């Protein structure tokens, strides 16, 4: 299994690095092309939130495995101002910067699992996962292990 990748996020150029690294790692895990694009786009959003709302932080990318399927975990972490109301931040169109407010809710739609842990004044950690062939695991003919 490929090793974890850590990308420090400090400027807009790091956003590009993070999503390119994420795409590369996801490709080695075995994702198809259209999923690679979804993953890279979601990474771009959470990495940009670090630059825009927290100033600096990091994105950690790692392969994962559960119930016989392979996947990727993306952790975007910062020690910025934190998010006071996570539910609100996850709403389409909510932005404290007059932006589109689609980054967080959009990234959630692109991935299979999405979690935010945030403390005001302490920082924010977004953890997202995507799995390969999620629909196949629900298929009855698949042998149970």
């Amino acid at each position, binding site marked *: 299994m490929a090793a974890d990748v850590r990308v420090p996020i400090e400027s807009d150029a790091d956003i590009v690095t993070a999503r390119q690294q994420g795409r590369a790692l996801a490709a080695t895990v075995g994702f198809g092309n*259209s999923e690679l694009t979804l993953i890279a786009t979601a990474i771009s959003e959470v990495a940009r939130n670090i630059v825009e709302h927290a100033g600096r932080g990091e994105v950690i990318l790692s392969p994962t495995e559960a119930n016989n399927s392979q996947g990727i975990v993306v952790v975007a972490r910062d020690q910025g101002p934190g998010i006071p109301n996570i539910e609100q931040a996850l709403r389409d169109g909510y932005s404290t910067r007059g932006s589109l407010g689609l980054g967080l809710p959009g990234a959630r739609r692109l991935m299979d699992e999405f979690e935010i842990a945030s403390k005001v004044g302490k920082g924010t950690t977004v953890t997202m996962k995507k799995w390969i062939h999620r*629909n*196949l695991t629900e*298929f009855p*003919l*698949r*042998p149970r292990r």
Partner: protein
Amino acid sequence: MKGKGNAIAVREPPAAPATELTRELVAHFRGKKDFLRQQWVEQMTAKSFLAGLTPKETETESITIYDTCVGCLERGEYRAAQSYATSMAERGVLRGMTTEQIIGGLLTLRDVYGRSLFHRYHREMARLSAALDIYEPVANKILSIVALAFIEEREKVVREEREKVVRQQQEAIRELSTPVLQVREHLLVLPIIGTLDSHRARLLTEQLLRSIRANRAKVVIMDITGVPNVDSKVANHLVQTVDACRLLGATVIVTGVAPEIAQTLTTIGVDLGRILTVCDLQGGIEEADRLLGYRVIVTESAGSPSPPAPALER
């Protein structure tokens, strides 16, 4: 399956440190290695267990198996046999070897070892019996390890084969259920039939987007006459598909919105304002032609009894 080799109960070999007799047996098998191994290979050849192996492969495989078995006897533990069995099973199955070849080969080796013990000890019955007490459980254990490894490998191959078939079938069903038809240059028609869940909507959109690029389509007609229930979720999928097509430069016309569906959509407040809808497929094609810059002209061929056929002209 975990804990390979535990499923078949076999007499456990003595766990105690190697006795003097064990050491003697090990020395015996090592000393007679070339002779016994040769005998084993000859017998296997006679039973055609070696079909498909080159002489070189036979040589290296038989040496490894021989040494592994003696090593198990010497150390009283089976990790080496276990890992070798697994790799052998993988290679054997992949190369189409039969159960008979693999198990039969090992039974032959067991007999070769056994016979050589008879030869050596047949004058001292008590010692022969003690030697067999040490040797037999080890031979059985190795056999069960190999048999299990082989069966597991078989199951794995069958399972993978089955999963592959299932995947192919799913793929085929997907293709069939969402045909993208090219009606004429730059125009695609996508008749959607059946329920539209998010998984299918996604496949359909991906397929449609690729077709737009491949066929250089400028207009797409999405006919939803065959979609039984259009709720807000389905409507949102449709809106997304339309938006995605537009990003590639194609205009989408939705046709076949039944009266009840139109009513539901307005009641649940789905915003279809951005979507160009036309009553039925025929109307949709006419609208598409208009967008593409075609003109429908009616040819009045004199004396023709049949209704005039519309012809297209750019």
